[in-house]
């Protein structure tokens, strides 16, 4: 038997279609954080992957250690160590960083550092798998025409690895968008944090969190549309048969993306 249903449909619709400006700001912040952290995650991840595949033992060990640490601990714990822990122990107090008109607050610094470094560990594994899957004959051919290994990596191997990376990268970015909701615990007013604040004043929990969920769904859906575009762009030289295979690969990686 249902109790008294308390769902304010007008409130829900207002917040979904015409929310106050702080919600728009929260949404904007979520997008910006996700893009910045994903970008750094990709760049650092590539470096870690190259270190992992390096011929120098010490670099390989370091890369393995990096991935082991960042992938083996919960991101919420990482976030609290990097922000609260580091500040509490007095290593770094997170003063605001001002770059021109832009002020990066302490929590924001910690958030970007944590999300980027955490993401880098996953991207490193994705890049490593992609690079390793390129046929050995490609680097033979590149070296045979006189390329150094760095040139071969840049001009021959990475462009081919890029299209293999694309489906799991889209996956990672989806996880990143959703993952930013964790930042509310260190007081960042991104989308979810903003909704929690409004909730504290209005107690319209179900309506507000439902609105948040719908907005995350809109973001991740837009994301997958962009991803489809990019994949088509990167595989323009492929035969239809290869594309089918890639689609299957993507299905599997969606499941393995859980964490």
């Amino acid at each position, binding site marked *: 038997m249902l109790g008294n249903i308390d769902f304010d449909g007008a409130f829900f619709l207002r917040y979904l279609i015409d929310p106050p400006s702080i919600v728009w700001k929260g949404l904007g912040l979520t997008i910006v954080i996700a893009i910045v952290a994903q970008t750094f995650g990709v760049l650092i991840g590539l470096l870690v992957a190259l270190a992992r595949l390096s011929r120098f033992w010490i670099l390989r060990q370091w890369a393995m250690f990096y991935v082991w640490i960042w992938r083996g601990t919960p991101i919420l714990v990482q976030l609290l160590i990097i922000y609260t822990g580091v500040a509490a122990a007095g290593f770094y107090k997170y003063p605001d960083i001002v770059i021109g008109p832009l002020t990066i607050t302490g929590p924001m610094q910690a958030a970007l550092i944590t999300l980027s470094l955490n993401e880098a560990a996953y991207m490193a594994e994705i890049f490593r798998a992609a690079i390793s899957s390129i046929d050995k*004959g*490609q680097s033979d051919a590149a070296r*045979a025409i*006189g390329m150094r290994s760095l040139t071969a990596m840049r001009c021959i191997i990475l*462009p*081919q690895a890029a299209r293999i990376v694309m489906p799991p990268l889209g996956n990672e970015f989806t996880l990143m968008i959703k993952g930013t909701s964790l930042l509310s615990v260190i007081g960042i007013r991104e989308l979810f944090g903003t909704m929690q604040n409004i909730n504290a004043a209005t107690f319209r929990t179900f309506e507000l969190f439902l609105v948040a969920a719908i907005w995350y769904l809109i973001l991740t859906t837009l994301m997958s549309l962009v991803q489809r575009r990019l994949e088509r762009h990167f595989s323009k*030289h492929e035969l239809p048969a290869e594309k089918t295979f890639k689609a299957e690969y993507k299905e599997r990686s969606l499941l393995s993306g859980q964490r």
Partner: protein
Amino acid sequence: MMDAAPAKSNGSLVRILDVHKSFGDLKVLRGVTIQVPRGEVVCVIGPSGSGKTTLVRCINHLEKIDSGRIYVNGRLVGYREVGGRIVEERESVVAEQRQNIGMVFQRFNLFPHLSALDNVMVGPRRVLKRPRAEIEPEAKALLERVGLGDKLASYPSQLSGGQQQRVAIARAFAMQPTLMLFDEPTSALDPETVGEVLDVMKTLAKGGMTMIVVTHEMGFAREVADRVVMMDEGVIVEEGRAEDLFLRPREERTKAFLKAIR
């Protein structure tokens, strides 16, 4: 350019001296010596596992050698000599040496993300850093010479095996090498496309290119090879003019091998 031993050249473009090479416990090359004068075409035949692919990969230092010396153009390839021993050269030096040695692979190894034209241009552009405007006409002309003037924009996946291999030959030739290595260039091809690749190779040979070709195409060997080398178990069993070696082999192992592939 620094050169440790230019004086050792005796007119041969390629001098392979007593080369040994192992993969772990497996001895792949057990003292191979071959000299190839400029402009000569040498075909290397032999059963699989005889070390012929490894030998050509050693010539441009895609494989390291354990002992011996390989000179191309009077320069030690991939190594420098220090007190009678060989020490591996820096990567930049090896890369520069490879620019003069073209290589064609059994499985083509074209770059799948680049069009036929870009495959041919990527060496001159990325390695020699020449401007696109200058090399594009050259690359087009090269592809026309191998009969692919209408496939410039095609990606490797859109080309047949024979077409891919002809692009690969053009790609190697675009670096204007003094030596071309072919590692079983027709073994992965459909029979009907073997001829078109051999024709391109014959044109190259007749143009005076120095070539070392691992192949079992006896027709090709008889038509253009100055010499045929028979390898087995990491050593040279027999060498001689194509006619002599194919029609009147002296060694039992050569006879058995020729009988098996006929």
